[in-house]
């Protein structure tokens, strides 16, 4: 049996294992090991697989991931999210649709201290959605806004998915983090506009004018509560983008600051949330790293089989334009998003697709932005819409999963529009990274 046939059989076996409910990291590892065994022999496969697994998991660049995760959990354990929401709500809450826009803005700001869309969606579904309902918002819209806006938090640095993408592809993590800013802001603006339009054309979704009127002085005072966010923003943005320290160091320092803030702001009640945040970090990191380890074994098998090279030749021979290629890739990720979660999708597809980018003349940063946005859209589509599940998990009792998916629908369409814009205007993705990192 030749190497390419073995690799195709391997991919079929992977699909069977995945659909049988075998854990994704294990499926990738088992298929990678069996394939390498067929290609190189038992002993080489055994030791090669364990070496790949360990080297991937212990790689220095990946230390950033648990640090960013810890920062997110620590931030959500304190009152930071509530303070952000209150401050923005008092400024724009009086406009029809204002609380919804304040939630979108809060998710964007919270995204600077939390790199996880799932955490962001859940935190705001817990804090902002009940407030929106009190002010006359329909339950579908309230939770739809929170579930959708979570994905903005995942694009704004520090984005865990961008770090993962950088580690798997070998691209500059710093550049990728900067590249997430523009699509994050575009989505934020689009979502806010959607809420305003919905308030106009479907007034039953937002029944009455909301928001309490606070004097200007008091609203200014409310902004003071945002200082912890700005400290973290300065550390992360200033540190990484100013070349002062690496993303790993920025992750550690920002985690340290959020930890200290939690201890100060919670005044003696911080032990329990800190323990909770650390165990959540351990659980989430273990989940992500098992996929990393498995994907390292699987990638090794694909490279050894030569399938990646053949696949690249095949795609190049189709003479697709860059835009057609990007459209097909986006569609692929949107479909995969119905079956797999984000990191699994990247782990499986990057080894296969990334080698094509160079020969096709596609800017890897542009590609990364389009892929990450497409993956994020998958996080609000059924049946694996993780952000929707995250919002539903903390929602009030009368809110069903269908309600949240219904509320997400307009934001899904708007996100598709944003994705098309990012595909057809590559400069939107590459402008900022090229400006910050001209070398």
């Amino acid at each position: 049996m030749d190497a390419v046939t073995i690799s195709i059989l391997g991919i079929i076996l992977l699909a069977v294992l995945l659909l049988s409910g075998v854990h994704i990291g294990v499926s990738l590892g088992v298929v990678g090991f069996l394939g390498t065994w067929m290609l190189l022999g038992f002993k080489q496969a055994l030791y090669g697989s364990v070496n790949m697994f360990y080297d991937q998991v212990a790689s220095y660049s990946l230390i950033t991931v648990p640090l960013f995760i810890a920062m997110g959990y620590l931030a959500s354990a304190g009152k930071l999210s509530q303070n952000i929401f209150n401050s923005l709500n008092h400024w724009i809450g009086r406009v029809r649709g204002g609380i919804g826009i304040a939630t979108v803005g809060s998710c964007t700001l919270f995204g600077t201290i939390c790199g996880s869309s799932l955490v962001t969606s859940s935190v705001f579904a817990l804090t902002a959605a009940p407030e929106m309902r009190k002010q006359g918002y329909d339950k579908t819209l309230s939770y739809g806004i929170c579930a959708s806006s979570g994905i903005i938090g995942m694009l704004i640095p520090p984005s865990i998915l961008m770090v993962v993408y950088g580690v798997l592809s070998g691209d500059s993590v710093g550049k990728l983090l900067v590249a997430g800013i523009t699509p994050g802001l575009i989505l934020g603006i689009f979502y806010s506009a959607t809420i305003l339009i919905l308030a106009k054309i479907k007034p039953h979704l937002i029944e009455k004018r909301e928001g309490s009127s606070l004097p200007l002085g008091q609203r200014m005072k409310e902004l003071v509560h945002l200082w912890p966010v700005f400290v973290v923003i300065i550390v992360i943005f200033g540190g990484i983008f100013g070349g002062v320290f690496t993303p790993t160091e920025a992750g550690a320092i920002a985690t340290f600051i959020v930890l200290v803030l939690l201890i100060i702001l919670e005044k003696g009640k911080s032990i329990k949330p800190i323990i909770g945040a650390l165990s959540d970090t351990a659980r989430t990191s273990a989940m992500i790293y098992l996929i990393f380890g498995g994907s390292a074994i699987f990638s090794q098998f694909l490279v050894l089989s030569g399938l990646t090279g053949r696949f690249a030749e095949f795609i190049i021979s189709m003479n697709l334009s860059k835009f057609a290629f990007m459209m097909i890739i986006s569609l692929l990720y949107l479909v995969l998003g119905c079956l797999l979660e984000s990191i699994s999708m990247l782990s499986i597809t990057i080894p296969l697709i990334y080698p094509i980018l160079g020969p096709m003349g596609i800017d890897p940063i542009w590609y990364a932005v389009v892929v990450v946005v497409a993956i994020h859209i998958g996080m609000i589509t059924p049946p694996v819409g993780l952000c929707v599940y995250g919002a539903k998990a903390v929602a009030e009792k009368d809110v069903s999963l269908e309600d949240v998916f219904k509320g997400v629908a307009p934001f899904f369409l708007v996100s598709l529009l944003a994705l098309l814009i990012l595909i057809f205007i590559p400069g939107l993705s590459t402008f900022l990274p090229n400006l910050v990192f001209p070398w």
Partner: protein
Amino acid sequence: MNKIVAYSDKVIRFLRITFVGISGLALLGLTLMTTADTFMRFVLNAPFPASVEISQLIQPYIVFLPFAYALHMGSHVRVTLITERFSGRVRLFLEFLPFLIGTIFFAVMTYISWIRFSASFRIQETMLAAIRLYWWVGKMAMPIGLGLMTLECLNKSIQTFNAIINNKQVVE
């Protein structure tokens, strides 16, 4: 049989919690060390020696030790699109399969990683760093974490298998 399962459950639970605690402390330690190192480098121009290498030795403890905890909490990702459509014994069998495959996979990984660790320990394999650091310190985390993961998978396999042969609808 039930007594053995109950006892192993207790032991695994104790190890699981201990390992998560160590992982959390390792993360805190890494955070503090990296922050202090950055501060020392910029303010005093005196960075810690080999902080990157020390981080590489700490990281495996942050990651490998909570593998079993994540499995117990149902955090390891799987596609349940098809399996959740079944019920009763078919569903139980589909639950049993991932744990059985996991047990075999992690048992093999544990054994080989133990060989790697012991070889590194025997020759006192050192890292290229400003101070003397041993690779085996980091490599030890892999067989420990995966060993517990193997036990967790085995425990869940036995519980699911018990439910299947006793004609139960769910695992107790």
